[in-house]
């Protein structure tokens, strides 16, 4: 068996005295699309942010393609040690992230956002970076928007620029944190289409979403979290097929598009 793209072992995360993740074990196979579902407050976004090392886990380990992220545990589960900032950056370079709020840098054009890290971090020449930037913008259907500032783009376009920005660094794994949650309903389609195309290219995607229909049709693996615990983990046909776990049933009822999920 090949190494998983992401391996999560007994991860706990507390904010103050509130435990948000209560011992999560999950592995994300390479080249797959994994969707994290769950009610608000279930810990799915926190888990994703732990995979990105934007949040530090309280205990447990996360490995990216076999390399420990943030903390290593030579003692086999008893005493973990924090890795150096350089090590963290090296492992994190394999990961791209797309945020709910896009987080485009407002003082740079769309092309500037996409090429910034190529030039600043990788030291690429401006012209070569622009070439890659334009390719990535074309990939998300925005080749004519390179010179627009984020404020001149619609939410859906901004999110597609954010996807292009992440793709420009050719990450092995792309994380999506509710990428359509702050979009108007008529704009979610264009973002979901880009994500669907990415999934078809065989890139490893981990997606936190409330788009259950999308998760059911694109996801190869569904992880359902509830109250900080991984309740279900398996292929969509198994998870959404009957008989369903009562908590999932309840969740699907509150999250409207139950029809889409039953189509699986």
């Amino acid at each position, binding site marked *: 068996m090949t190494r998983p793209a992401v391996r999560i072992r007994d991860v706990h995360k507390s904010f103050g005295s509130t435990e948000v993740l209560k011992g999560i074990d999950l592995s994300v196979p390479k080249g797959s699309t994994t969707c994290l579902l769950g009610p608000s407050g279930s810990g799915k976004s926190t888990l994703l942010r732990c995979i990105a090392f934007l949040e530090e886990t309280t205990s447990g380990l996360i490995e990216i393609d076999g390399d420990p992220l943030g903390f290593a545990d030579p003692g086999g589960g008893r005493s973990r040690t924090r890795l150096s900032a350089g090590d963290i950056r090296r492992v994190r370079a394999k990961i791209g992230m797309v945020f709910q709020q896009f987080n485009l840098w407002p003082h740079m054009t769309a092309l500037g956002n996409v090429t910034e890290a190529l030039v600043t971090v990788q030291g690429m020449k401006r012209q070569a970076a622009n070439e890659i930037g334009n390719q990535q913008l074309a990939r998300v259907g925005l080749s004519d928007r390179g010179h627009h500032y984020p*404020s*001149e783009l619609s939410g859906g376009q901004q999110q597609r620029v954010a996807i292009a920005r992440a793709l420009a660094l050719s990450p092995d794994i792309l994380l999506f944190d509710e990428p359509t949650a702050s979009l108007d309903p008529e704009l979610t389609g264009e973002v979901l289409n880009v994500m669907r195309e990415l999934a078809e290219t065989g890139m490893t995607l981990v997606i936190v979403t409330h788009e259950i229909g999308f998760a059911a049709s694109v996801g190869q693996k569904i992880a359902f979290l509830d109250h900080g615990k991984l309740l279900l983990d398996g292929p969509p046909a198994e998870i959404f097929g009957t008989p369903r776990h009562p908590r999932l049933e309840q969740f699907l009822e509150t999250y409207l598009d139950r029809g889409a999920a039953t189509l699986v």
Partner: protein
Amino acid sequence: MSTRLFELMLWAAGKTVLLSAISIAIGLAIGLLVCAAKLSPRKLLSIPATIYVSLFRGVPLLVQLLLIYNLLPVLGIMVPSDVAAIAGLSLCTAAYQAENLRGGFNSVPRGLIEAADMVGMSPWQQLRRIRAPIAFRLTLPALVNEMILILKASSLISVVGVIELTRMAQNLSASTFRPLLFYSVAGAIYLVICWLVAGGGSLAERLMRTGSSR
């Protein structure tokens, strides 16, 4: 008013603008350092910065100017009154600018820094490419405000013997017995300079998109 007298007023206005501009620039540089120190997690840096800001914001500029002007000779430093004036104005505006900048840095949305983290930028790269440019844009209106305040407050430097616009108007009123005329002209010149600064500020704001609109 004869052309000669008007020329004197314009010369004095030039002096006001020059000394204010130099003070603003030096104050911005000091302000950046003080702001960096104040944002530092190290108490050895942040506490002195806090003390600096509270001292220079809490003592009237007029008193600061008189103190500096009288303190320097005691320390054996003989400087022209222009330099003493610049020192006083710069040290004072630095305290305000440090606070403006700190507000700007603290208002850079966290998500933008997380995005920079995720593309692998080092803290220094983040500061140079993301945090400072955005903070500067957020601070610009406050900076323009501060420029206008310093331009007007520069009338106080006449107390250390600098002949600038206000002092020139005072001198000319005394020698011609026409105070209304000269103070009106001085007021009008201050007004025009401030309009120009404010206009330049809005132009700069428009040129550097903040992205907060729409």
